[in-house]
């Protein structure tokens, strides 16, 4: 995806929290302050099922930690298996530093936010995360482009060698 393309695409955030009130609040915030499309789920399992249906539409994931069917770390690990490049943010009311360090190391978290969260901070983290996604995608695109160019070049090289041989 090029920069030109992404300007016209609204980034999509996947938000999972078993508490409806958290989903409503964050969704409302981004409706008023961001140009993001926010998909909300109270069930991490349902979120994963839907992700498998539409794999390319997610740019960033925010998840709660303590949820009845699956904890946030397990959920984010599964997200990572599917989309290693998508930044993952843990939003937790369970303030525990040991937990946080574990999470960052094992799941490769992009950020760890504590409840009650600050909207400005959340927006900043999300904006930077999306920027990171974009840059990574551009980088990946550039790498692919470079590889293609190299292949072409090597084809040219072969042709040239054939001519002079």
């Amino acid at each position, binding site marked *: 995806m090029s920069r030109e393309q992404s300007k016209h695409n609204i980034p999509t955030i996947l938000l999972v929290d078993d*508490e409806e*009130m*958290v989903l*409503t*609040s*964050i969704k*409302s*915030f981004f409706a*008023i*302050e961001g140009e993001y499309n926010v998909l909300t789920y109270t069930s991490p399992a349902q979120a994963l099922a839907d992700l498998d249906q539409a794999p390319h539409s997610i740019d960033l994931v925010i998840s709660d930690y303590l949820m009845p069917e699956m904890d946030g770390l397990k959920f984010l690990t599964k997200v990572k298996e599917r989309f290693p490049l998508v930044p993952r943010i843990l939003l937790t*009311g*369970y*303030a525990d530093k040991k937990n946080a360090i574990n999470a960052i190391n094992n799941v490769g978290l992009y950020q760890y936010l*504590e*409840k*009650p*969260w*600050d*909207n400005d901070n959340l927006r900043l983290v999300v904006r930077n995360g999306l920027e990171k996604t974009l840059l990574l995608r551009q980088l990946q695109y550039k790498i692919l482009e470079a590889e293609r160019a190299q292949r072409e070049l090597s084809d040219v090289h072969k042709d040239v060698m054939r001519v002079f041989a």
Partner: protein
Amino acid sequence: MVEVTEIFPFPILECDANCRLTSINARCRDLLDELGIPHDQFFRVLPSRYASIIKKVVKEGETHEGRKRIQGHVLRFACIPSRELALIFINDVTREEEFQTQLIQSEKMASLGLLAAGVAHEINTPMGAIRSNTDILSRAVRKMRQLIDTQHNREVNKLLGILDEVCRNNDVAAERIMSIVGSLKNFARLDEADRKKVNIHEGLDSTLTLVRHELTHRIQLVKQYAELPEIVCFPNQLNQVFMNIVVNAIQAIREHGTITIKTFRDHDSVKIAISDTGTGIAPENLGRIFDPGFTTKGVGVGTGLGLSISYKIVQNHRGKIDVESSGHGSTFTITLPLKDSNESRTKQAQHTHDSAGR
């Protein structure tokens, strides 16, 4: 008979139907000496009903079991008939009862810590939503101001003003809740059951936040904190001491009064003086306030454990608590040494480990 009881490893004494001492063994002599009671005066310190109890034991062959607190010792005794006399077996259970008291209190603190952590966690999610929603509301108001020509629509302008005010008010209220939850967590310090270097003013302030509702209007609080170095201690235990003394101070003030908390450094120790302008402690009670089970608050209000536990905690920190009291109020001064010893560290670690049960 005398020979057997003499070598018996429990305090035993023997008397006739009129409470006249006929025999006493070595252990019992030691115990009475320790309590400062002349051997033949033992029955004088017992309640008067014991005269008839002993009579019944001797004449009617009854047995009797009792418990009595004497000079800070808790004694249990069993009286059994022995021919024309009564044999009284005494067991000094002071240490056992003290230990049990400490255990109960430690368990209570551990549960409070768990409760505090649980409550804090439960509150964080709805609190996050409330704070975020308030923020969204004020952002929406700002955007509406830009969209609506408020100059020509005074009613709308007024309503937006009210919304702004309400949002600010919500923020203040939310901050208050956050600070209470923070204090509760800080007070219980569940995550810090270990020895730690802390600023004791933090502990004092957390404690005061938690008793704030008791102070309002009625009691003025004066804080005179000096610059103090951090001290190595068990913060959750010291907070418990502050809480016990502050709650006592609040209860000592019948109507209006002042509680003054003063901290200062004195040579190699820090001192925390908590004074109230309450009713004071009756002189005859002054010597007993640290005894476990002693309370003047009445059933259901006091357990009689607060100060005895506080005393033990401060003692384990190699400090001391001094009390001064008159009819115009009381001052409890806690002295804590700045340097700490290895000996108390091991002892304390053991205690914490045992009592936390996890």
